[in-house]
């Protein structure tokens, strides 16, 4: 396997972008990424596109071909492939593209992710988001993603493993970071009381515990071409990338609050990267729901340490365990297919030292976690600079 580097990144703003279509968003992110890489479309051997549900959101399938076309690549006829893994589509596309380049099949690939979620009313969008769950044995009976997260939270509180305030802290951190990121869906800071007092989505979770429905696209250029890597300003190495899966339905798992797919993928990713978790300078976790963000910290650091990190407010960019410096899914936004790719964009900005106000000083390694549904797919990626 060859070494693979991220040599360019690009993203649109995330949010309710009514004046932009899916193809506008994808093209904007892709062109920003190749411009950032200092390359031309002719240098691109293939396109990997992450998209979760365009068929339902905008009645459009065959996204891979559409995006290549919209990005002006039709005359070149390059391979273009869509990857779908629920809200882990971005991470999964990055994984597949990484393998294609590492194997030697392609030298330079653009990996993009896009979702256009606000062309349908919110109730319709929530139904489509629920498509990552089990349609026959969960959603058929009235289950939503938020309701599953809520039942996990309720059980954990019942078992005395945490208090309501502990996971309410996660969106507070995300919003603080989001306020410092110009591409964020939300740029306002919130307080713990705001989370607790907001209207319920599924008790005990309120709207501030849940990531929003966003439009957006992000793209990265990855390469093994020495010349392109050397001429790019600050190449970031894809140190490792691992995927794992779990039972699709939450009720089928050995424990409803063990994120087994994350446990396995993160362990393998750190092992193949040959680094310990203490070496990770920044975490980009999949905080689709506050409680799910905290569960990931628990899987990674153990129950006690995770609670200490939250209670001692150690997750901020200038503290000991910077987490979701982008603003996370909660504040930066969650345009399903784009979410996992944006995590790589944020990590690249941080590792280049170009993250502005929210820059983590001297960051060398970032662990990304992109998750499908409530953890049935988990992609863990380690990015780093020497």
């Amino acid at each position, binding site marked *: 396997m060859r070494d693979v580097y991220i040599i360019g990144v690009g993203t649109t703003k995330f949010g309710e972008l009514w004046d932009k279509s899916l193809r506008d968003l994808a093209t904007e992110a892709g062109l920003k990424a190749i411009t950032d890489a200092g390359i031309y479309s002719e240098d691109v051997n293939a396109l990997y596109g992450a998209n979760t549900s365009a068929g339902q959101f905008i009645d459009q399938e065959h996204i891979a071909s559409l995006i290549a076309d919209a990005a002006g690549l039709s005359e070149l006829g390059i391979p273009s492939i869509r990857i779908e893994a629920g809200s882990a589509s971005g991470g999964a596309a990055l994984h597949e593209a990484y393998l294609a380049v590492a194997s030697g099949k392609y030298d330079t690939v653009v990996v993009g992710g896009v979702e256009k979620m606000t062309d349908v009313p919110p*109730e319709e969008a929530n139904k489509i988001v629920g498509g990552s769950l089990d349609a026959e044995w969960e959603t058929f009976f009235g289950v939503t993603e938020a309701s599953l997260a809520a039942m996990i939270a*309720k059980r954990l509180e019942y078992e005395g493993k945490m208090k309501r305030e502990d996971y309410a802290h996660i969106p507070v951190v995300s919003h603080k970071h989001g306020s410092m990121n110009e591409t964020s869906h939300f740029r306002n800071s919130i307080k713990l009381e705001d989370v607790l007092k907001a209207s319920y989505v*599924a008790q005990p979770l309120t709207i501030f515990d849940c990531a929003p429905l966003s439009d957006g696209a992000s793209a990265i250029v990855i390469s093994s071409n020495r010349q392109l890597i050397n001429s790019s300003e600050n190449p970031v190495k894809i140190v490792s990338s691992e995927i794992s899966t779990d039972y699709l339905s939450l009720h089928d798992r050995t424990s409803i609050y063990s994120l087994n797919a994350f446990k396995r993928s993160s362990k393998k990713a750190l092992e193949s990267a040959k680094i310990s978790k203490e070496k990770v300078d920044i975490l980009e976790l999949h905080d689709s729901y506050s409680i799910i963000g905290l569960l990931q910290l628990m899987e990674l650091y153990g129950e006690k340490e995770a609670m200490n990190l939250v209670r001692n407010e150690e997750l901020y960019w200038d503290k000991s365990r910077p987490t979701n410096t982008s603003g996370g899914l909660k504040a930066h936004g969650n345009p399903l297919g784009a979410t996992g790719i944006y995590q790589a964009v944020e990590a690249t900005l941080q590792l280049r030292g170009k993250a502005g106000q929210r820059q983590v000083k001297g960051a060398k390694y970032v662990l990304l976690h992109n998750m499908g549904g409530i953890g049935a797919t988990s992609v863990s990626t380690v990015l780093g600079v020497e």
Partner: protein
Amino acid sequence: MSDVPRFWRESNHRYRLVGTKCNNCGSTFFPPRDVCPKCRRESIGKMEELEFSGYGEVYSYTVVHDGLEPFKFQLPYILAMIKTDEGPLVTGQIVDADPSEVKIGSRVRVTLRRIREEGKTGIIQYGYKFILEK
């Protein structure tokens, strides 16, 4: 979601809580599985149907305030994961109860109810919900 066969084929499972049992390791499953995830290939030809008793207790629950379109007239509704007496967790609504009456550990039994319907002219879909044992 409007084709009749899609619902008809699950009616045994949704009306009578018919799951499966692996006769290789003895594990029970609901919803039914074609392959045992513990025995995998060893379970081929050894999976048989098992009708669940319909009794269990609340493992966790929530009150859903922001729900899907087919359920909008039921909002807010109680959704729970039920630990069945046979072992597996089953997810479904708890009905005929006030949220304040529901506790983790509460005993419940299954009941057949209308789940959703396809508009005014489409089919009405039935399935299991749970009621508190008093």
